[in-house]
């Protein structure tokens, strides 16, 4: 490993360990007086799932140099988890907080949404590791493009139907599930959009825009559905299967089908 790679490895390890340790301690330290459940357990397990997804992608689809060298596997796994630990803090600015809404208010809808968002961002980063490339900086560049797309799409959905209010104020479990699945779906497409062998920054950005075209459509579809299914006095919480499981499965199926049809990078 070169000097800069060692530096990135050490920094990533510090950010990942400190970031996730404080995240977990912040959630688990909240007393549970009279309020069990609320999706806190599954959300606490989400980072482990994200790590498993990332390592799985690194072991199978990353550059040959990464797949065959444990030190590079470690570098990119830690870089990814550090990346995710930082971004997990951004959710609060988007109106959904792991500590406030899940640990304190015991809101399972928020746990579903945040769990999906973490997996979706993991897929964005994992996609950036797919294919051959000259070094870690191209992973960071590609992951930045995918992550930017992820948050722009989230902002569009927020603008279309105020998902943060539906999840945190209405505590609509169906919306939380559907939005979580939507995050995974766009993460899949965005991850695919930045996958491939490196040629240049411009070419990577062009490819990302060209391949990620379903993301605005998925955002529009989720936005329209969110408006249609918005809580009302007659239906303060939507049906979990009809408004959550079914559309969530549809988003995932559509994204998976698109990635399969798009074929190899």
């Amino acid at each position, binding site marked *: 490993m070169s000097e800069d790679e060692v530096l990135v490895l050490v920094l990533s390890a510090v950010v990942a360990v400190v970031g996730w340790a404080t995240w977990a301690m912040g959630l688990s330290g909240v007393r549970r007086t*009279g309020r069990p459940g609320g999706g806190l357990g599954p959300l606490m397990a989400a980072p482990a799932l994200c790590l498993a997804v990332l390592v799985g992608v690194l072991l199978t689809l990353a550059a040959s140099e990464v797949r065959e060298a444990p030190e590079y596997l470690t570098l990119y796994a830690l870089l990814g988890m550090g990346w995710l630990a930082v971004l997990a803090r951004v959710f609060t*600015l988007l109106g959904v*907080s792991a500590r406030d809404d899940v640990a304190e208010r015991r809101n399972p809808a928020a746990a579903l949404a945040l769990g999906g968002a973490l997996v979706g961002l993991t897929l964005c980063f994992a996609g950036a590791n797919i294919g051959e490339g000259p070094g870690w900086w191209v992973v960071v560049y590609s992951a930045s493009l995918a992550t930017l797309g992820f948050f722009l799409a989230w902002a569009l959905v927020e603008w279309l139907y105020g998902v943060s209010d539906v999840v945190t104020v209405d505590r609509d479990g169906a919306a939380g599930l559907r939005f979580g699945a939507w995050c995974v779906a766009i993460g899949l497409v965005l991850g695919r959009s930045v996958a491939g062998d490196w040629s240049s920054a411009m070419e990577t950005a062009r490819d990302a825009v060209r391949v990620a075209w379903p993301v605005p459509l998925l955002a529009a579809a989720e936005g329209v559905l969110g408006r249609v299914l918005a809580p009302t006095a007659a239906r303060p919480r939507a049906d979990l299967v009809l408004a959550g499981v079914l559309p969530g499965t549809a988003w995932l199926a559509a994204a998976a089908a698109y990635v399969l049809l798009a074929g190899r990078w």
Partner: protein
Amino acid sequence: MTGEELYGVWAPPEAAWSAWAKPVLFAEGPTAAGPPAAGPPAADGPPGRDLAPATDRVPPADGETALVLDLAADLAVELGARLARDRGYRPVPLFNGCVGPGQPMVDSGAAARLLVRLAPVVSEANAALAPGAPPAFLLDHFRMARGQQPRPGQFDNRWLAFPPDFPSGPLLLARGVKVVVVVTAEPEPPAEDLVHVLLRWRRSGLRLLGLALSRPEPAPLDPATPWTFRRVWYRALATLGLRRSSVGGFGALLPTESLGGGHGYTGYRGGFG
């Protein structure tokens, strides 16, 4: 009585609004604020004030009216217990600041002691209250310590209420609530954090009224829309400068030195159980 049991009295599992009750003052343990004062466990007994006129002024719990008691914390607890006993409202404590040691910025101790002291009153009222009894949300009017700035060495337990701390407008409407009455000591505009809640409720179709305890009749409430209304980052921005407690809610000792950060409060006197 453990903190868990006390919480069960004020937020019984079968009650429709218990999911919104804040456990912070209960999680610290019933003795965290010191032993409750001696005296009869009645909402109108010492150290209670004469709350009969205030209680009579509150609309009857006809199922169509919900209350927000934005009063001094101890007064909110007393009036909440009395409304449970005499008027059929379900008190829902939303206090989110720890009691803390030493000189806290917000005095939650009196309210914590009253939660213990009035538990028998509420427990008795619970037997008569339907699970869907209309809610009376209890807030501390002085939750932001009257705008005081924290000093080194102080226990900063200022806190704010946010829209997710209350049921949504559609849910209130679905459960038959049509009017929300904000009860304050004096006629004054609602605090900005509460305005974010009230405006959402009004948008959903709920009618808003303000009832000052110093005035005989409720009056329509028409809060102005703050520029931060429905901004996704509002909560993150509003809590900047407040101190989180590591056990939930707000509260942390400020460092005595000019440098260095405060540390989250971890409770004292053993917590609940």
